């Protein structure tokens, strides 16, 4: 009997499909639609702090009070545009830095003995299980002007005054690289682990230097892992809130943080919603591009 007929029983099917599907429609799909709706209305003072999208019209049809004002502000007010550009820049640079750090780690793990591999992988994954908030917070104590790093540098006589490390863009990049490192190591490791190493041996037998063999064979073959890793770091980093909030300075502009400020400090729910929709587009675009490239690649091969 195949798994299909196993679940052929109707009530099992209704339970296994209906419950999660209903939950997701109500709590993942519908909320996104509501964000879209609220992004199209004006803010007001009251509860809730936005104008209704539909009001009673003269005839049978309701009147629609949609406005594009929030989106016009989004593209004309330099604050929002700067926030988007700076989020993309910070997330892109951090993803590349993570790659530079993660690739050698993934390579070393893939080439390690089978018995040590599991241990090394575990060491990379384990911090992921401890609180994200605590991992980011831990850096504030290290980067402080009277924190451990500055104290050590002053004592060693390397610097006279404490360096401004905390509340800078530098700290934000560091926080992203540190927090999302496993997301880059794992997909690259997964590809390298499957790699046919006899190809490299063959290249070296034919006279290629180890560097050339790496450049022409290993690296191109690990490209799928690299792309997956870059996405897995870029997507959460670009909308990050905690890292810029705790490690960033007053000049650090990131969309996720700006959305939070619009919502909690300015109580501008419609503007926060418009930012959320723009952020959604920003997150989905790279994911879609890669998805289509991969599809085309599969179709071609």
């Amino acid at each position, binding site marked *: *009997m*195949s*798994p299909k007929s*196993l*679940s052929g*029983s109707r009530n*099992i*099917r209704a339970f*296994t*499909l209906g*419950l*999660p*599907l209903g*939950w*997701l429609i109500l*709590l*993942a*799909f519908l*909320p*996104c639609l*509501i*964000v879209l709706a*609220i992004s199209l209305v004006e803010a007001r003072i009251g509860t*809730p702090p936005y104008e209704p999208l539909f009001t009673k019209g003269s005839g049978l049809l309701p009147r629609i009070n949609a406005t594009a004002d929030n989106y016009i502000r989004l593209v004309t007010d330099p604050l929002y545009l700067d926030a988007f550009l700076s989020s993309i820049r910070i997330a892109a640079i951090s993803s590349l830095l993570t790659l530079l750090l993660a690739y050698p*780690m993934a390579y070393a793990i893939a080439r390690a003995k089978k018995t040590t591999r599991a241990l090394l992988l575990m*060491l*990379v994954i384990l*911090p992921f*299980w*401890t*609180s*994200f*908030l*605590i*991992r980011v*917070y*831990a850096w*504030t*104590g290290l980067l402080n002007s*009277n*924190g*451990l790093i500055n104290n050590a540098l002053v004592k060693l006589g390397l610097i006279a005054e404490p360096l401004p490390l905390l509340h800078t863009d530098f700290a934000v990049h560091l926080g992203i690289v540190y927090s999302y*490192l496993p997301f880059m190591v794992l997909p690259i490791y997964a590809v390298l682990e499957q790699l046919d190493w006899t190809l490299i041996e063959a290249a070296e037998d034919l006279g290629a230097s180890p560097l050339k063999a790496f450049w022409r064979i290993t690296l191109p073959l690990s490209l799928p892992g690299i792309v997956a890793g870059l996405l897995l770091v870029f*997507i*959460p980093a*670009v*909308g*990050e*809130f905690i890292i810029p*909030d705790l490690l960033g300075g007053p000049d650090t502009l990131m969309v996720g943080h700006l959305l*939070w400020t619009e*919502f*909690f400090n300015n109580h501008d729910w419609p503007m*926060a*919603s418009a930012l*959320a929709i723009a*952020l*959604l587009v920003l*997150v989905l675009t790279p*994911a879609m591009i890669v998805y289509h490239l991969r599809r085309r690649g599969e179709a071609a091969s």
Partner: protein
Amino acid sequence: MPLLYVPIAILILYSFNDSQLVSVWSHFSTRWYGELFKNAQMREAAWLSFSIATISATASTVLGTAAAFALRSMRPSPGRSLFEGLLMVPLILPEVLTGLAMLLLFVFLGEAIGWPRTRGTATIAIAHITFGMAYAAVLIRARLSQQDPVLEEAAADLGATPWRIFWRVSLPLLAPALIAAWLLAFTLSLDDVVISSFVTGPGASTLPIVVLSSVRLGVSPQINALASLLVLFVAVLMIAATLVLRSSSRQKHG
């Protein structure tokens, strides 16, 4: 690689520092742990966080299991791809967006059907279940795809009803993945601050919400103590789970 652990190790070390100044070491003391346990706000927040995490991890595992079984029984079709995509939504959306979207939904529902009248424990738990089930489904699906259907087929050939096969064969085989999924959903719930901040209401401050608001004012020795306890708690949980899973797999093979 040990460098990954330095920030947390130093945090734990300095939680035993007697000085009020966090970065100046005076001498070893458990003073901040004492003050932490006397802090009523922290105790309440801890209780709330652990209750929410337990409820949402359990519900996430049930829903994630259901989703994994549903996907296994479906043939490739546009409907299946749509369901799969919907299941990915909570994994891809930035937390600020999920938080805002959930809050707007609860406000909308409150006006439309009168529930929820106030936000708090229930709304936080519902939000946590939504992302928890998506993570749980990933783990359970991975395990389910490796599972040999031959045992379920044998049970069916011997006349077991589908429900009986589900409870007596499929689920026990999945146990390691279920434990892992529950633990992941539990720790994710225990850690969430962004989404909780959006969907919470008066009086419902989870541990991470209390931590964030105090951390934004600067480094505090009491928070160092709390953070160390949380790290220790998760570490013990992980080690226990690993040992349980290892002994159960040894029984099976040995």
